[in-house]
C-alpha cells in the first residue's frame, strides 16, 4: 500500500508533536535549549517530508503513501492518511515555512520561548494533519484542533490589540466550521456510513443534498481563504500576530480554504459546483479588486500585505472555479506561490519591525542606503508578488487568467485589472519604504545578518525556480487535476440537461 516501506506521512505529521512533547518535558528555564530543540524538530520534519516529492509517482491520480488503520470502529472512523499532487506540495510548503518560522522567531520572541515553540510545533502537526487526512472525521479534528495553537500564538505573543484579534480569528473560523460539521455528518449518512474521503468522492448525491452540503463546506472554507466578504478577520489577525504567526497564517492557513474547495467541494458536489460557479467567480473578482484597492491606501505594512492576500487568494479561487486544467493548475501553483511570496514579505516586515518597532510606511524611506541586501531581497519578493515574468507569481497568474479566459472570459478580464492594481500598490509601497529620503532616526540601522538571510534565501530560490522552471511543480499536478476534472464533469454533464441554463453558463467555454 505504502510505497516507502515506512509510514512517512505519520512520521512527518507527528514529528513536530514529538518535538513539542520533548520541549515540554526537557526544557526548564532555558530558552536557547527550547529554540534549538524546536529547530531540530522542524528541520527533521522538513527533511523527512522531502521524500514525498522525490518518490512521488506522477503517473497516477491515486492517493499515495497511504496508511490506513481503524480508529473508532463504532462510527467507522479510520485513521487514513495519504497525499495526491495537491496536498503533497502543501505538505512540503508547511514543513519548509515552519522551519523558517522557527529561525525567524529566534530573537523576535523573548517571552515564554518554551511555550511559543511548543505552540508553533503543535500548529505544524495540526496543519500537516489537515493536508494528509483522508478521513473526514480525522480532517475535522485537525482542522479545529489547529485553531487552539494559532489562537494562543496571536493572543499571547501578539501586538497591542491581540485579544480582539485572537478572539475574532477563533470565533470566525469556528462559526464557519461548525456548519461544516453538520455537513460532514450528513455526508456520512448519505454516503453509506463512511467518512472516507476517497469513497465519498464521485458519488451521485441528489442535487438538493449537494446544494446544502456544498454551502456548509463552502462557508467554512470561504472564511478560511478568506474570500470577500468573509475576510474581515484577516487584517486584524495579521497585524496583531507575531511575525511567524503571520507567515504561517498567510503561507499555510489560508491555503486550507482553497485546499478544502479542491478536496471536498469540487469532487464531492459537482452539480452544486456547477450551480455556484458564477457567484463564486463574482466573489473572487470582487475580492481581487477590493483587496487591491484597500491595500493601496494602507499605512501599515502588515495590513497592506494582508489585504494583498485577499486579492491574491481571489486569483486562486478564480483559477479553481474556472474549472479547467489551466485554471486549476494555475490556482494550485498560485497557492504555493502566495505561501512563498507573502510568507517572505511578512518575514521582511518582521525583520524591519525588530529593528525599528514600527510598521508604518511613513516611518521609513531610503532604507536602500542602509540595508542594501535587505532591499534587494525585498525587491525580489515585491516583484514576485506583482507577478513579474521570470518569477513565480507570473506563472501562477498567467495560468489562472488563461484558464479563466477560456471558460469565463468576463471574469478573466476584470481579474486582469487586479494585476495592474497589484503592481501599483506594491511598487508604491516599495518606493516609499526603500527609496526617497532616509529618516534621521533610521541612520543607525544595520543590514540583515546570516540568520535573517537564511530565512529569506530559500524562499528567493523558490521564487525563481517556480518562475523559470515550474515543470517539477506542475508535473506532479497533471494527473491529480485531470482526475479532479473528470469527477467534476462526470456528474455535472449528467445533470447539465436538467440544470439547463446553468450548464450553458457554467461550461460555455469548454
Amino acid at each position: 500500500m505504502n510505497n516507502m516501506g515506512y509510514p512517512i506521512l505519520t512520521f512527518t505529521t507527528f514529528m513536530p508533536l514529538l518535538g513539542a512533547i520533548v520541549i515540554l518535558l526537557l526544557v526548564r528555564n532555558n530558552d536557547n535549549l527550547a529554540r534549538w530543540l524546536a529547530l531540530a524538530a522542524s528541520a527533521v520534519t522538513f527533511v523527512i517530508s522531502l521524500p514525498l516529492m522525490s518518490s512521488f509517482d506522477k503517473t497516477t491520480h491515486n492517493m499515495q503513501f497511504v496508511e490506513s488503520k481503524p480508529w473508532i470502529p463504532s462510527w467507522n472512523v479510520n485513521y487514513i492518511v495519504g497525499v495526491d499532487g495537491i496536498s503533497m506540495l502543501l505538505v512540503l510548503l508547511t514543513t519548509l515555512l515552519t522551519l523558517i518560522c522557527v529561525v525567524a522567531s529566534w530573537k523576535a520572541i523573548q517571552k515564554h520561548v518554551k511555550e511559543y515553540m511548543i505552540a508553533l510545533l503543535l500548529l505544524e502537526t495540526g496543519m500537516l494533519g489537515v493536508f494528509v487526512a483522508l478521513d473526514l472525521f480525522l480532517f475535522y479534528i485537525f482542522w479545529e484542533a489547529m485553531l487552539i495553537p494559532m489562537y494562543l500564538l496571536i493572543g499571547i505573543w501578539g501586538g497591542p490589540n491581540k485579544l480582539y484579534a485572537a478572539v475574532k480569528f477563533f470565533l470566525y473560523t469556528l462559526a464557519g466550521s461548525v456548519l461544516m460539521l453538520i455537513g460532514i455528518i450528513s455526508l456520512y449518512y448519505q454516503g453509506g456510513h463512511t467518512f472516507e474521503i476517497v469513497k465519498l468522492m464521485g458519488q451521485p448525491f441528489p442535487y438538493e443534498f449537494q446544494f446544502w452540503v456544498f454551502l456548509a463546506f463552502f462557508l467554512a472554507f470561504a472564511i478560511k481563504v478568506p474570500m470577500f466578504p468573509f475576510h474581515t478577520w484577516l487584517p486584524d489577525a495579521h497585524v496583531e500576530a507575531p511575525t511567524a504567526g503571520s507567515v504561517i497564517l498567510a503561507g499555510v492557513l489560508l491555503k486550507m480554504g482553497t485546499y478544502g474547495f479542491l478536496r471536498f467541494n469540487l469532487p464531492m458536489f459537482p452539480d452544486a459546483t456547477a450551480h455556484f460557479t458564477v457567484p463564486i467567480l463574482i466573489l473572487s473578482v470582487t475580492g481581487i479588486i477590493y483587496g487591491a484597492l484597500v491595500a493601496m491606501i494602507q499605512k501599515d505594512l502588515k495590513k497592506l500585505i494582508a489585504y494583498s492576500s485577499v486579492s491574491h487568494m481571489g486569483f486562486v479561487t478564480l483559477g479553481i472555479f474556472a474549472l479547467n486544467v489551466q485554471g486549476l493548475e494555475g490556482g494550485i501553483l498560485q497557492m504555493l506561490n502566495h505561501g512563498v511570496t507573502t510568507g517572505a514579505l511578512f518575514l521582511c516586515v518582521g525583520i524591519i519591525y525588530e529593528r525599528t518597532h514600527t510598521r508604518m510606511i511613513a516611518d521609513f524611506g531610503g532604507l536602500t542606503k542602509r540595508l542594501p541586501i535587505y532591499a534587494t531581497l525585498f525587491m525580489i519578493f515585491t516583484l514576485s508578488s506583482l507577478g513579474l515574468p521570470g518569477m513565480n507569481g507570473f506563472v501562477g497568474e498567467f495560468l489562472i487568467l488563461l484558464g479563466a479566459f477560456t471558460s469565463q472570459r468576463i471574469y478573466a478580464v476584470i481579474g486582469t485589472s487586479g494585476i495592474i492594481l497589484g503592481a501599483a500598490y506594491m511598487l508604491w509601497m516599495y518606493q516609499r519604504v526603500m527609496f526617497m529620503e532616509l529618516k534621521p532616526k533610521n541612520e543607525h540601522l544595520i543590514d540583515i545578518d546570516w540568520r535573517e538571510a537564511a530565512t529569506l534565501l530559500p524562499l528567493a530560490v523558490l521564487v525563481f525556480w517556480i518562475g523559470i522552471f515550474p515543470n517539477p511543480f506542475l508535473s506532479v499536478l497533471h494527473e491529480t487535476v485531470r482526475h479532479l476534472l473528470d469527477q467534476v464533469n462526470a456528474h455535472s454533464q449528467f445533470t447539465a440537461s436538467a440544470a439547463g441554463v446553468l450548464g450553458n453558463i457554467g461550461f460555455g467555454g469548454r
Partner: protein
Amino acid sequence: MPSFSVHEMRYIVPELVIIAFGMAILVLDAFVPKDKKRWLAYLALVGIGIAAAQTCGLRMEHVTAFYGMFVLDGFARFFKLIFYIAAALAILISVNYVKVEEIERGEYYALILFAVSGMMIMASGADLISIYLGLELMALSVYILAGFMRGSMKSNEAALKYFLLGAFSSGILLYGISIIYGVTGTTNLRGIAAFIQAGQFSRPALVLSMILMAAGFGFKVAAVPFHMWVPDVYEGAPTSVTAFMSVGPKAAGFAAFLRVFTEALPSIQADWTMIIATLAIMSMLIGNVVAISQTNIKRMLAYSSIAHAGYAMVGFVSGGMQGISSVLMYLFIYTFMNVGAFGVVIMLRKGGMKGEEIKDFAGLARKNKTAALLMLIFMFSLAGIPPTAGFIGKFYIFMSAINAGFLWLAIIGVLMSAVSAYFYLRVIMVMYMSEPESEFDLASNPSMKLALAVASIAVLYIGMYPYGVISLAINSVAGL
C-alpha cells in the same frame, strides 16, 4: 409475577455499601479529632471503590428485583459508574477546600454518599415510586450540602432557594405520577407501558401527566424554563458541592428522565419528543447566551451547565439506541470536564482570595502554568473543540440527531456551541493574555492533584481514543 427472596439483596449490594459507609462516617465523625477529618474523606473513597467493584461484579444482563421496583441493567450500571466518578472526584477536590472554608465536618462526606445512594436508586428504579424515593433521598442530601456554609448568607440563600423550588418541583413530579397512576392503575414502568399498549386510556390525562413529569425531571437536570434556581444555587453553594451538583444529580435526573420516558411512555413518543426538543432548544439558547454576560465563574459555569443539559436533551430527543447512548456518553464526559473546571476554581480559593470572579484568573498562566494549562484543557473541552472529549461527546449527540432526522436541532446545537466558545475562551484569555492583578497562592494538595490529573487525562484520552467509552455506552443501552 415477580416475587421477593433474600437472594435479591445481592443486587443492591453497591447501594448498601454506600449507605453503610455513609452511616459509618457519621458515627466515626464523633471520634475523629478535628485535624484528622480528611481520613473520613478517604474512607468515603474506599466505600465508593468497594461499591464500584461490586457494581462491576454484577455482570448479569438484566435483572428485576423487589417486586419489579428495582432493575439492574447496563443502563443503570453505566449511570452508577458516572455517580461513582462524580462523587469520588468531588470528594477529592473537597478535602482541602472544606478546610479553607472551615466546614470540615464528617457529615459532609456522609451526605455525599447518601446523595449517591439516592442517585443509584433513581438509576435503577423500575417503578415510579422507587424513582421518586431515590430522587428525594438525593435531593434532601444535596439541599443540606448546598447550605453547608452555615455562616454564609449566600450559602443559606442557595440552600433555601434550592429546597423551596426543589420541593415544588417534586410536588409537580408527584402530581404527574399520581395522574398516571390514576390513568393506568400502576406505577410500574413496564406495567404503564403495557397498559398504554392495550389502548384503553384517557389520552389528555396521560399527556398532562407526561408534561408534569417532564417539568419535574427538567428541574433536576436544570433545563430551561426550570433553571431559575441554578445560577444562585451554584454560586452560593460551596464550590465543591457545586461541582458535585452539576454532574451527579444532573446525571441522575437524566437517568430517571430517560428511563421513565423511554420505558413507560414509548407510545406517546411523538408528544414528548416535541416537548423535550423545545426544552433542549431553550436550554441551549438561554444557557449559552446568558453565560456570555457573567462575570462570576461559578455563575458562568451554572449557565454553561444549563446549556450542556440542552445538548444532552438533543440526544434524548433523537432517541433510539444511538440517541440514548449519546446522552450516556455525553454525561460521562461532562462529569470529567466540569468537575475538572470546578477543581481549578477551587484551587484559587485560599485565605483571603475568593477566586470566583473571572478576573481573578488574570495572569494565572504566569504564576502557575499547570493550573492554567488544565483550565485551558477543560475550557476547550466544554466548548467542544477537538482533540478533547467534549468534542467527541457533542459529535455523537449531533450525529444521532442527524441520523434521527433532527437536522435543525443539530444546527442550533452547533451554532450555540460556537457561541459558547466565546465565554470559555474568555477564561483562557484572562489566564494567558492578561497581567496578574493579585498574587496567586494556589491551594494545591495531593488529592486535588489526583482529581485534576484523572479528569484531564480522561478528557484528553477520550478525546483521542473514544472507542472504549462509545462501546461501553452502546452496550449499556442494549437491554433498555
